[in-house]
Structure formats: C-alpha cells, structure tokens
C-alpha cells in the first residue's frame, strides 16, 4: 500500500467537498428527479394551455355565393372592426353552399344576389349576423352614394390615444411574475425541505460527529447550502429558459424583452430568498434529531413562506398598495413580493436597493447567529433543543 500524502485542505476546498457530495447525492435521488421533471412539465403545460386558450378566440368562416371582391373585402373589414377573424369561402352555387352549412364547414353563407340572404344551420350567432349585416349595409350605402354621384366621402377618422400604453405589457409582466412567485415558492419549500432533511440525517446517523472532527460547523453549513443552492439555481434557470423558449415558440407573449427581464428579476430574488430560507431551515433542523420532529421546528418558517406567497399573489392585483409596499422591504417576505412589484413597474430604484440591502443584512445575521446555534445543537442529540441552550452550548 503506497502512502498517500495528505495536505491541509483549505476552507474553500472543504466547503466544495461538502457541496459536491450534496449535489451528487441529490442528483441521483429519485424524489429530486421526479419533482424536477414534474415542475418542468407543469411549466410547459401552462404555456400550452395559454396557447390553446388564446387561439380559441373568435374565428368565423363565412361562405359566399355570388358577389364580387368588394363583398369579400367588406366582410373582412367588418370582421376586423368587430375583432373577429373572418375567413371568406366562396362557393359556386347555392346547393354547394347549403351542403357546407349542413356539414358545418362554415357558420353561414351569404347569398349575395339582388336580395342578400344569410343561410345558417339553425340560427345566426350574434357576431355572424353583425358581420354580415354590417358588410351588406356598408356595401349598400356605398352603392347608393355612388348612384347619387358622391364618389368620395370625407369621413373623419377617430384618433385613438392610449392613456396607459404599457398596460398590456404590464399585465403580461405581472402574469409572468405571479408565475415566477409560484415557482419561487415551490422551489424554496422544496429545497428548504431538502436542506432540513439533510441536516437531520447527519444528526440522527451521528455522522456529524465524524464530520466535525475534520471541519468547522460553518464549513459544513456553507457546503450544504451552496451545494443544494447550485442545484436549485440550475433548476430555476432551466425552468426560466424552458418557459421563455416555450412562450416565444408558441407566440404567447408580445414583448419578449419584458418577459426575459422579469424572469431574470425572479431568479435574482430567488438567490436571495434561497440563501435566507435555506440557512433558517438548516438551523431549525439542527435543533431536532429525528425526521419525525422536523415538521414542528420548520413550521414557523414555513408559515412565513406561505404568508409571503399570498402577499406576493395579492400584490399582483394591487402592486402599489400599502401591504405590498411595506412587505416588499421586509426580509423574508421581499423575495416573493418585490418581483411582482418590479414587474408591475411601479417601484423606484431606491426601493429595490433598500429591499436588497435589508435582505442581505438579514442573510448575514441568520448565517452568523444561526451558525452558532447550528454549532451548539449539532452534537446534542435526543429530543428538541431550545435555541438558548444551543447558543450556550456553542460557547461552552
């Protein structure tokens, strides 16, 4: 047996070793693979649903017997005015048109002879009748005007000025942000659970004693958070890319730039939110020694996450409201509220900066204080440890 030459590993390399173990263990875990695939499928499903729901809107096929090109033009123009896609299908004679109506190839057929007549299967729908009536009426007026010697009629065009030109784009961004908040919430809960389970597994199997003989508690904590964090980041980026690509492919969004920037904002807030929740979950988990006791200690933090989630959703409908405004600064809540406000486009830069700074400070606090609780609690097994005891044990 040859003698290997051990060297003193740096903090960074210890953290990296722990992180690598987390990644390689988790990536082979069936639960993780299944949850990742399910989330991606849900995203694609949601986009497809959007496509189907969007394409289902009014399209009317109108048959036409007789009449010239002006009738086709008038029908189409009328359709456009009424926000209905009109497709005109011309038939040679009435029997052919009747068959088409009976086969439901078209919704109705306009017999444009001397006396215009609309053939329908049972009864004419509101839009169909409106389109045909409008087109026929317009043509008749034009004919009568021509007959009266008036070729060109000066009709003043109504100018349209949009009061909130961005409304559509805002709406779209808010929908994206809500979508993002749902994903963010799911991933935070999922990875928070992963972290907590990992901490308890190390405690209940006592492997932590062996680990702490070679590294400091903070290195272990940092490695776990970082390793799972990379996986989580990979997952949310994958989701973001899939969602953007799917949305662009199926032409669901009108402003791709806005979509991408909103996705980027959600991902950035995910990083901050993850760091905070992961640390809190890990520290809470270190207080118990059995998986069964986990739910109890994670409860308060999970509740905060749930509350943040609902405020985030609420903020979508009232992004400028007092509730959204205040909670978007509060660390822990901000990662789920601020992205929605940012998407709605009603946030000043200083507000975002303030929320980020507060969140970073909170992360620093949790890592410092939580790291001490974690160190004090790791080697104490049996029952649930009080936070104060853990802090005292750390100093002992």
């Amino acid at each position, binding site marked *: 047996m040859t003698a290997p030459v051990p*060297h*003193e590993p740096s903090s960074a390399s210890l953290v990296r070793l722990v992180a690598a173990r987390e990644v390689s263990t988790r990536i082979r875990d069936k639960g993780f693979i299944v949850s990742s695939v399910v989330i991606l499928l849900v995203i694609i499903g949601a986009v497809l649903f959007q496509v189907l729901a969007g394409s289902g809107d009014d399209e009317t096929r109108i048959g036409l017997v007789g009449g010239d090109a002006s009738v086709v033009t008038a029908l189409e123009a009328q359709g456009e005015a009424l926000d209905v896609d009109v497709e005109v299908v011309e038939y040679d004679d009435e029997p052919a048109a009747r068959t088409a109506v009976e086969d439901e190839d078209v919704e109705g057929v306009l017999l444009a002879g001397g006396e215009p007549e609309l053939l329908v299967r049972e009864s004419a729908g509101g839009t169909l009748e409106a389109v045909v009536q409008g087109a026929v009426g317009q043509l008749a007026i034009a004919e009568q005007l021509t007959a009266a010697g008036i070729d060109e009629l000066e009709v003043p065009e109504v100018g349209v000025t949009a009061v909130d030109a961005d409304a559509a784009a805002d709406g779209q961004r808010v929908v994206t942000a809500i979508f993002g908040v749902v994903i963010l919430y799911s991933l935070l809960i999922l990875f928070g659970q992963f972290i907590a389970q990992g901490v308890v*597994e190390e405690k209940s199997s006592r*492997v932590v004693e062996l680990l*702490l003989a*070679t590294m400091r508690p903070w290195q272990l904590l940092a490695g776990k958070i970082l390793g799972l964090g990379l996986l989580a980041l990979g997952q949310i980026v994958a989701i973001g890319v899939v969602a953007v690509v799917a949305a662009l492919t199926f032409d669901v969004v009108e402003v791709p730039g806005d979509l991408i920037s909103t996705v980027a904002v959600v991902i950035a807030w995910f990083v901050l939110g993850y760091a905070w929740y992961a640390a809190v979950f890990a520290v809470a988990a270190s207080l118990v020694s059995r998986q069964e006791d986990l739910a109890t200690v994670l409860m308060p933090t999970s509740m905060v996450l749930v509350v943040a989630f609902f405020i985030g959703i609420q903020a979508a409908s009232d992004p400028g409201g007092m509730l959204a405004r205040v909670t978007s600064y509060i660390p822990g809540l901000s990662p789920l509220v601020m992205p929605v406000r940012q998407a709605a486009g009603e946030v000043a830069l200083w507000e975002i900066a303030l929320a980020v700074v507060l969140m970073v400070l909170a992360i620093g606090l949790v890592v410092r204080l939580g790291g001490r609780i974690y160190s004090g609690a790791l080697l104490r097994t049996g029952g649930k440890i009080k936070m104060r005891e853990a802090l005292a044990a750390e100093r002992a």
Partner: protein
Amino acid sequence: MLEFDGLHKSFGEVRVLEGVGFTVAPGSMFGFCGSNGAGKTTTMRIAMGLVRPDTGEVRWQGRPLDQASRRRVGYMPEERGLYPKMKVGEQVTYFARLHGLDAAAAAKASRDWVERLGLGARRDEQLEKLSLGNQQRVQLAAALVSRPEVLILDEPFSGLDPVGVDSLAEALLDQVRQGVPVVFSSHQLDLVERLCDSVGILARGRMVAAGTVEELRRREAGRLLRVVVPDAAPDWAATLPGARVVSEQNGDTLLDLDGGADDQAVLAAALRTGRVTHFAWQQPTLVELFRGAVAAPAPEEVAA
C-alpha cells in the same frame, strides 16, 4: 507522545472530568476503562475538538491538537456515524478527502481499505444494506483510510461477534506495529488486558489508575496471598499477625497481608496445619483491579 493533560470539564452543575491525564507512546495501545458515565467519551471528544475543555489540553508530539493536526487523527465515535444511504466505497473516499487526500489518492486508498477489510464485493452497496458488523468495518475503514498518525476509538469492539473482534484487534495491532499510538475505550476488560500495553481506569471524572497492566498488578500484588491447606481448621489463619482473612473455604484461603507482614511466617503456620497444596501471591485480573480501583474511594457507591 500523545498526552492528555489535566482535563477538566463541567456541563452546567455536573462535573464530568476532574483532572484527567495520561500519555500514550507511539506504537503502543492504551485501553481506557471506566464505568458508564465515568467520562471516557467526553475525554475522547475533547481530543477531537468536539467538546471544549474548561482547562487542560491534549498534545500530540508536544503541540496541542488543533483543527489541522486533528486531521491526522483517525476517529471512531461511540455511536458510530456514516451516511446510511451513501455507497460504501464513495463514503470511505469522501472521508479520505475530508482528511486531506486528493481525489485520486482518496479513491485508491478507499479501494484498498474496503478490499482489505473484506468488503470488496459490497463497495457499491448502500451502507444501510450491510449487516451491523460490516457497517462497523466500514466505520473502521473511514477511520483508517487517511493513514492517521493517531487513532482514537470509542468502544470500537462493542457489538462485534468474536470473529469481528479478532479481525478488528488484528487491524489495530497492525497500526501499532507501524508506530501509531492507539487509544480505545472498552468495557471488555479481558480484551483490554490482552491487547493493551497500558491501561487507564477512569472513575467519577478522575484517573484512579494508569500504567501497564503489569504495573497495576504489582501495585495491587504483595497484598493478596492464596494458601490452600486442605487439612487445616477453618480458623487456622485467624491469629496470624498482619494478615486478614479475606475468604476461607475448605482450606482455600485468601489472605490480605499488611506491608510489614512476613509471608514466610504465614507459610510456616500453614505447614504446621498439614499439607500445603498451593502457596502464591494472587495475580489480580484486570477485572479485579478495575473493581478495586473504581470502588476504592467510595465503596458505598458500588454497593448501591
């Protein structure tokens, strides 16, 4: 030298260690005995930096053990500890890397040790699928894989069948032959007596005895004399000066002699009763030494 020096530790009101100290020479095995709750685990945890002593320190080669030098210590905790769902080979490799081996060396050392402890075929199985005895072997592999300079093992033999005990003992003796100081705690005193060069007995947070088994015996010996006189009356020794009868049964007599008592006078008295079939200083077993040492300061505790 591995030196445990003046360790004191209290958890709240409870004083667990009150001045524990002993030394272990390189290439020797030290058996650490004591009743449950005597402070053995706390002493070992202090050495591994898992518990901070109130005073005192543990030194290796003259320098206090710190995070860096502890990496050169192989450790087996009392309640064992490995990842249940991690594969055997990967697990041992991981611990080798935590002890500072690079990836290639760690993989090779892991393969070698797993093979050597007879687990080659189980390398790709999850730890929890193995029997407890085999899990214990993996634990040993995790402690030995980084070629430690020092071994500290808390109850390494507990839960092993006799074959497992022998193979672990062989592995430890092999480490000793390579110059590694080995400290292990155990309740199996016959094992300690058989394997260890020196022994420490811990009771109520203090070392009540430390030294080679031979030294401990010598300290106790010179006191107990066994004389078998089949024809003697039951009270034949009652009047001997400086001797107290510990037990007497059909002439098989155990005598506790004062420092000044003359053993030859006892022999003469014995011969006067008739045949003497046995006359020798009693060699106390480690079990007897242990009982004596643990019980000595406060016999009522043992009685209770």
